[in-house]
């Protein structure tokens, strides 16, 4: 074992402030899962601001009929970049970042299984994202046309073929995502390996915290679902650059095939995004209800079955494609099935709240918001799965409403819950409760105002991805409401930014365990030392810290 001499190791207070360059180098060269986790989440949040800005511009354009703030091309680029950014550059990195930080801590490990691969994954993700955004400048290419991609986040062929998408914008979409999804796959593999092989003594599979379970299934989905996307993108790239014919109707290629390939990835992808949300609230709700999670084994079983079922429902994005009624019926059935395990999770969370002693600190507030909003989004999902109804509202604003309820109301709310919950652990500082509550209410109201009316305009016949609309169609009111809602959301996001900024400078000290919680990450200092735990912990139950806090009534006697 070659051992490098230890450079001046900064340990919290009193450490000298290293010069800028060497601090940069420290971040660039790190293989520490915690530093990488922080970098993931931070980049994710920055991209969230960018994606939000893009959304704001779209809503500005759509606020009134016949608006001319944006040209059609610009609008089309905006929703493509908004969707792509939010899914690939916000959702993915934040979930990978949180997993990076807390999976090793919760299973009592020192790091991920392959720390350097982890760093490699992060940088690939980041450079992929930058490459995608570089398209705004670089996509002119040789044709002198094109800017950012404008083909929608699922890039349906043949609109993406050379005939209809000149220039290089679509190539940027392909390559940017390809690079960043290599990173995600690498990190997914890393997480699986870590969870399967690096748990501390005593932590059997059925003693893992739910977050770890959910991230395990999530990583498996990443491993299974992302390579097919890469394959599909590579084929599209060959079409565009070398004249292959995979998705080119003139050469016999099939537009339907692209949709199958994309959604075979795309549907698991949305569960890849929501499972971490489930993970965060599964950690937060018990702590703030002062109760053990209700029905842990069934929660695990539900997680596993969600993982399985989600691989077999992708055709529900193609109900209007004119597939045979039998195919539509079968996939409608499989899609309905997924409501059952998801329902189990909802009920078990509520079951955890039932009989508890609930503290409504900001993390819990956001978690409750998550429950209510995800419920709505899930139910509209079931409505969409009802094929006849989907024939009407597919590709309409109803769908936009649905997925923002699950993605914003579900994913983003839970991300904020997670940030409020774990920020003290990561930085050693508390976030302000008061600002947090203001942020919650602003976001909550703004969010419902923005996305609630979208269901209505969708059912009134408004298709998505239109840059403008006529005044006589009865959509003005609903669009105006949506656009007003964004303003309130912006206020909410600004409160958050201010809260983070303020807490970093002068937040209250958090101590090791501010929430009186039960999983291993709270048994080490905030922020944790580079090695996480001085000795490898040994656990005997799902809540090791409960055992220590209540030695007369430990969990392990009952598990």
């Amino acid at each position, binding site marked *: 074992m070659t051992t*490098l001499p230890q450079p001046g190791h900064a340990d919290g207070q009193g450490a000298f402030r290293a010069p800028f360059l060497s601090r940069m180098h420290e971040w660039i060269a790190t*293989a520490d899962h915690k530093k990488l986790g922080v970098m993931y989440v931070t980049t994710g949040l920055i991209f969230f601001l960018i994606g939000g800005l893009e959304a704001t511009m779209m809503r500005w354009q759509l606020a009134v009929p016949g608006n001319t703030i944006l040209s059609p091309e610009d609008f089309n680029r905006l929703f493509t970049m908004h969707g792509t950014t939010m899914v690939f550059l916000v959702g993915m990195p934040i979930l990978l970042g949180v997993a990076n930080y807390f999976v090793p801590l919760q299973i009592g490990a*020192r790091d991920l299984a392959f720390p350097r691969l982890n760093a490699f994954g992060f940088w690939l993700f980041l450079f992929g994202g930058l*490459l995608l955004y570089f398209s705004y400048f670089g996509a002119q290419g040789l044709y002198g046309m094109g800017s950012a991609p404008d083909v929608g986040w699922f890039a349906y062929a043949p609109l993406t073929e050379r005939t209809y998408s000149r220039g290089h914008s679509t190539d940027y979409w392909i390559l940017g995502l390809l690079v960043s999804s290599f990173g995600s796959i690498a990190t997914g593999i890393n997480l699986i390996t870590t969870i399967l092989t*690096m748990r501390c003594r005593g932590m059997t599979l059925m003693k893992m915290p739910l977050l770890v379970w959910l991230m395990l299934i999530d990583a498996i989905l990443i491993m299974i679902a992302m390579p097919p996307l890469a394959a599909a993108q590579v084929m599209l790239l060959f079409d565009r650059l070398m004249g292959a014919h995979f998705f080119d109707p003139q050469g016999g290629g099939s537009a339907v095939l692209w949709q199958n390939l994309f959604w075979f990835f795309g549907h698991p992808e949305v569960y890849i995004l929501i499972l971490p949300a489930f993970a965060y609230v599964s950690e937060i709700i018990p702590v703030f209800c002062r109760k053990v999670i209700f029905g842990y084994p069934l929660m695990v079983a539900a997680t596993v079955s969600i993982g399985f079922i989600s691989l077999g429902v992708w055709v529900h994005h193609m109900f209007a494609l004119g597939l045979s009624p039998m195919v539509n019926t079968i996939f409608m059935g499989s899609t309905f099935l997924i409501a059952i395990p998801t329902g189990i999770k909802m009920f078990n969370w509520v079951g955890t709240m039932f009989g508890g002693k609930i503290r409504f600190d900001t993390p819990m507030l956001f978690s409750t918001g998550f429950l209510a909003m995800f419920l709505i989004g899930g139910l509209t999902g079931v409505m969409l799965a009802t094929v006849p109804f989907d024939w009407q509202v597919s590709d309409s604003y109803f769908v936009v409403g649905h997925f923002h309820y699950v993605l914003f109301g579900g994913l983003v709310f839970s991300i904020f819950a997670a940030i409020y919950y774990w920020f003290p652990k990561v930085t050693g500082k508390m976030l302000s409760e008061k600002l947090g509550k203001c942020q919650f209410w602003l976001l909550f109201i703004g969010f419902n105002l923005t996305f609630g009316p979208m269901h209505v305009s969708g059912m009134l016949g408004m298709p998505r991805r239109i840059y403008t609309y006529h005044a006589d169609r009865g959509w003005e009111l609903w669009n105006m409401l949506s656009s007003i809602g964004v303003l309130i959301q912006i206020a909410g996001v600004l409160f958050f930014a201010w809260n983070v900024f303020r807490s970093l400078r002068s937040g209250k000290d958090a101590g090791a365990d501010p929430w009186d919680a039960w999983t291993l990450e709270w048994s080490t*200092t905030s922020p944790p030392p580079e090695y996480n735990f001085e000795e*490898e912990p040994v656990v005997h139950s799902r809540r090791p810290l409960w055992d220590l806090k209540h030695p*007369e009534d430990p969990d392990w006697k009952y598990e």
Partner: protein
Amino acid sequence: MEHDAKQPGTEHGIHLPAPTSSPFVCAFGVTLIFTGIVTIWSVSIIGFIVALAGAIRWWREGLPDNIHQLVPFQEDRVTIEPRPGAVAHLMIPGGTHRARIPVEIHPYGAGAIGGLVGGIAMAVIALIYGLIAEGSPWYTVNILAATVLPSLGQEDPAQLAQWHTWGFILGIIIHVSMSIMIGLLYGVVLPMIAKGRILFGAFFVPLLWSGLAWGSLRVVNPVLNDHVDWTWFIISQIVFGAICGFIVTRSERIGTMQNWSTLERLGIESPGVPSIGGDEE
């Protein structure tokens, strides 16, 4: 592989993977390779060189052996204070306060069997009705199958009385699955009700169900809606409820496998607990 660092630390500190910028360099190179595809090929060449340099350095750090750094222990440690006596208890007769409630249940099998038997009784009544109303045992089966078979919807009563293979298969599937599911539900819900189980099972639920059916039948099954005789409908529901409820309440109570995890119950995992806890009879 790289986690050799997991080995327990020495007294002063712990060996962790040393920081290295090779992954960064390598990732940058890879990205450049891809960028070259849409810009100029020379970018790809540079990217290749950069990636290769990064990769080689990375390999040299990992092969033949990983490099590590020694991280010294930090000063502050965390201790977790016990908080004895701070847990509220839930008192369940015969159980512990760490319960999976309830402590005793009726076996779920009883529900399924009750559902099946109730379903058979219901089918008999439906057959009788079919014979009386249209003189055919297939009539009610076909009507039920019309929930899902559109072609049956277009036929007149005389044809509905005829034999349809698909009608029969689908009708049976629908009836049996519904009976079993509702039976299971009886099996778990009835025991939770303190008083008036029979009343609940035999009247409340059938009436609730009939009410729901009445409200939605035009959409759920237009054919049934056109041909239904509500008296017979409700009677058959009540017969189902009564029989199923009876079978469930008569079954023996058994102890729940308190605190067993699913994996343990399936025998997949035994976490080394000496006596598997809490299987009170």
